[in-house]
């Protein structure tokens, strides 16, 4: 459905004729259904490519005036980037792609939405700096990960989730006003996102963000850590078979397997208490097999060999990154003490070699999208966090509901395909269950919701916290009553600030 000409003209005056379109062939690039659902999104009414926060403010005001909804997006990787109702305009923020500042002294970077992980992470490496990269692929938007979506990453044991690193926010509200949060409020610079007083930053992101549904974040500052690796990614080889090896005296990967989840849990807990390690996680095994292979057939050959089921059903991945060889020796000794005490052994060397040869798993996760290789129908479930112990309780309960789906051959038989990532030296952990299904399965469109529903029923039955109410309104209204009626508060807040439904 096209915009009324007058509205189009108003928007065109803001961004210029080259940066707005309602031509069907342009919109075709923004309404393709994800492979995981048969539901085709509504076509956007138009797409705009604004260049500045000021343009966004003007666009928002025009949309408000004419009753248009808008969605701000960058890479449009997930379903929230697409309209669920007609009369929605997409603001594609890719032109706002400046790294505004890298401050090496105070360790922050100020970025616009269009800056991608692949750009920022490798640019910062040159300066000996780093930040936790969420596993979304190098084309993912840094700002979106930090401020609008989720933000869990492999390295959050020694670092944290991305929301922890936000140091300042510039935000166009649903009303079109622009506000700056934290120390920016008093023009004190980009170093603190909280205050003055109650932290308004709490409105832009909880465990996950509003995925573009609460105004538009136009600039953020993110805190930076020291990078203990080389200035340039030491890539060898060619696609799809790159090797990335970091200096062995300060970077080591270990993968252990444990006989029980309880022992694995105990190892993860002890490693946290010892405050060693950069990445500590129980990783998915089917996903690991997908990342390790170069075609679906290769995956099936590996998967049907049973190696990853045997070796990686209860694995512990540990990545140590230290400042010196002496520190590495110390951390390795402590790690081995813990693993020996908790009953772990090293996995098949073939598997360790995969990660030793591709330590990008701990840097940029460039090939993360291989998880889509089997046809693209996949979905995550759970996705929240609590203590390491509690996450393992949740993990142990997964077969209770998942086995019914594998028994009916509705999903890939991979009951151990969940990850638990330690955070902040094991103070808490994030859990994600990833399941894959085939689009030709009868009723395939219903599978993800059925799995998630059964997952949630299991959590309620056990009193487990593993899922946060997502942003979508129907889900929020369905689950909100179980979560302190958060849907009511969320609705009040969104209405108060003009975000609508």
């Amino acid at each position, binding site marked *: 459905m096209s915009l009324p000409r007058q509205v189009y003209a108003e928007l065109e005056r803001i961004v210029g004729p080259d940066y707005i379109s309602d031509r069907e062939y342009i919109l075709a690039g923004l309404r393709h259904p994800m492979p995981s659902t048969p539901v085709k999104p509504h076509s956007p009414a138009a797409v705009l490519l604004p260049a500045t926060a000021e343009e966004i403010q003007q666009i928002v005001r025009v949309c408000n005036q004419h009753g248009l909804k808008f969605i701000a997006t960058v890479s449009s990787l997930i379903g929230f980037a697409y309209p669920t109702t007609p009369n929605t305009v997409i603001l594609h923020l890719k032109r706002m792609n400046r790294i505004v500042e890298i401050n090496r002294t105070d360790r922050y970077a100020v970025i616009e939405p269009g800056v991608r992980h692949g750009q920022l992470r490798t640019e910062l490496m040159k300066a000996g700096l780093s930040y936790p990269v969420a596993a979304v692929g190098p084309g993912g938007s840094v700002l979106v990960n930090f401020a609008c979506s989720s933000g869990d990453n492999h390295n959050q044991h020694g670092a944290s989730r991305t929301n922890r690193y*936000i140091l300042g926010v510039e935000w166009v509200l649903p009303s079109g006003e622009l506000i700056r949060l934290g120390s920016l409020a008093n023009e004190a610079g980009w170093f603190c996102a909280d205050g003055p007083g109650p932290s308004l930053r709490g409105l832009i992101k909880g465990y996950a963000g509003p995925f573009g549904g*609460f105004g538009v974040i136009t600039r953020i500052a993110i805190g930076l850590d020291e990078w203990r690796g080389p200035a340039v990614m030491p890539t060898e080889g060619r696609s799809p078979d790159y090797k990335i090896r970091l200096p062995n005296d300060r970077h080591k990967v270990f993968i252990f397997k444990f006989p029980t989840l309880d022992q694995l849990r105990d190892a993860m807990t002890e490693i946290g208490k010892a405050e060693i390690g950069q990445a500590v996680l129980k990783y998915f095994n089917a996903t690991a097999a997908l990342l390790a292979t170069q075609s679906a057939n290769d995956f099936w050959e590996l998967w049907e060999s049973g190696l990853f089921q045997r070796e990686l059903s209860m694995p512990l991945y540990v990545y140590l990154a230290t400042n010196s060889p002496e520190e590495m020796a110390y951390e390795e000794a402590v790690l081995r003490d813990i693993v020996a005490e908790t009953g772990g052994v090293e996995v098949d060397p073939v598997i360790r070699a995969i990660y030793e040869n591709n330590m990008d798993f701990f840097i940029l996760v460039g090939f993360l999208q291989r998880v889509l290789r089997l046809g693209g129908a996949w979905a995550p479930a759970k996705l929240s966090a609590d203590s390491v112990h509690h996450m393992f309780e949740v993990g142990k309960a997964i077969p209770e509901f998942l086995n019914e789906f594998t028994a009916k051959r509705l999903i890939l038989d991979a009951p151990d395909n969940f990850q638990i990532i330690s955070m902040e030296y094991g103070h808490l952990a994030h859990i994600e269950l990833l399941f894959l299904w085939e689009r030709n399965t009868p009723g395939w469109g219903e599978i993800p919701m059925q799995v998630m529903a059964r997952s949630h029923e299991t959590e309620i039955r056990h009193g487990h916290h593993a899922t946060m109410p997502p942003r979508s309104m129907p889900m929020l209204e369905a689950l909100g009553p179980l979560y302190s009626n958060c849907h009511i508060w969320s609705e009040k807040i969104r209405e108060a600030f003009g975000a609508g439904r």
Partner: protein
Amino acid sequence: MLAPDVCSALGQELTRAVGAENVSNDAATLKSCASDCSLVTGTCPDFIAYPRSKADVREIVRIANGRQVALVPVSSGPPRFHGDTLPSRGGIVVDFTRMRQIIKLDAVSRYAMIEPGVTFGELVPALERQGMKLNVPLAPRANKSVLTSCLEREATLIPKYQYDYMDPLLTLEVIYGSGDEFRTGSASGPGPPESLKADKVNPWGPGAIDYYRLLSAAQGSMGIVTWGVVRTEVLPTLRKLYFIPLENPQQMSAPLDALLRKRVVDECLALDNTNLATLLANDLSRDFAALKAALPPWTIIACVAGYQRRPAERVAIQEKYLTDICRSLNLQAQTTLPGAGGMEDAVLRLISGPWNKEPYWKLRQADRCHEIFFLAPLSKAGYFVELMQNLVAQSRCPDVDYGAYVQPLVQGRGAHCAFLLPCDSSSRDEADAVRDLFLSASETLMKKGAFFSRPYGAWADLAYRNYPDGATMLRTLKHIFDPNGILNPGKLCF
């Protein structure tokens, strides 16, 4: 103050709700609630209520809403310094000193679940007995509420355990001013708290809003917390203190930054000789002057620690990093406190828990004090210290012996800068001069980029005058969570 008949009816309602033994309108006690060490002018409340449970809190809030009476939550014992607990229009002080249960200590998942009345004096030793510690502020009062300290985003001593300014606060249960009950983060659900097996250590959410941030530094104006979960750490089995003497404050940011980038140290802070002497002198009148003169102008205190596994090896590695860093900066790290050799254990005690003596250290120099504190990038701490020096020199009290303190925060990306101005309240001239200095210096510092993230008293006006949009948003939120405006009215921008 309320009209007598209204007051009486209110008192009866409170008594029915929480029991006569938990309601007070003793004149002296009421009067003590109207003032503190700050420059804020308060009013006497009409009652003090002492809830013992969440149910009590709900009732008190219900009553206050029904009668449009202000509620001022207070969790710490005196002396208080910020004016945030002084009622601005009477009402009910909700005193949590009787709601002080340590609900749970968990050494495996490293957290403590506590009620608001639990103090540092109670929690720190309880944690130690279980092999844990808390990331504490510098020498907090023993009767200070741990939850309040965390809610108010007080600066803590171990920057490597801070991932943002909310640490170590985790989840909360709150009764909003509307009377609704809410739990944040992973405490939110699914289902009622008694059915939930989660450890409630994930503070974010539920959903796309960080509700706990909206309650932080709110001075009790958004909701009344009935319990909270705070993060704890492993108690080190081996600790070694190092002291880095500095001639001038501009030298401090480089070593602090370098140490924190490599995560070498646990506690680390910088104190000037005034503050350090105030904290360490056994007999202030006898020992302070000599001690201050002997101490270097500034001292960085840094603690390297080993935990349960191979602690000596860990400490050895961290020590080498520390000494290498200092050498590269032409600084000297010593295990003896420069100018005060033999007092190292005293320093260790200072950074390990609450202040247990009387008077509280901030009141050792005089019976009153006014503290200016704000946040700044660590690289600018030295600049602000020198700026404050100049402001004092140009003031009507150039000889005031104020103490300065810089606390790196959040992995060293920020710093808490604090200047403690002692003030003899018996001298009108001195009191006026110090007050004027406090106000004018605050304004100048803010104009020069100091971030008053916790805007108590007069700072609120300064902070929100230049931030009208933020103030409007906060008022909008306030209206959502406290529609009748009963919670601590008159604070912040409310």
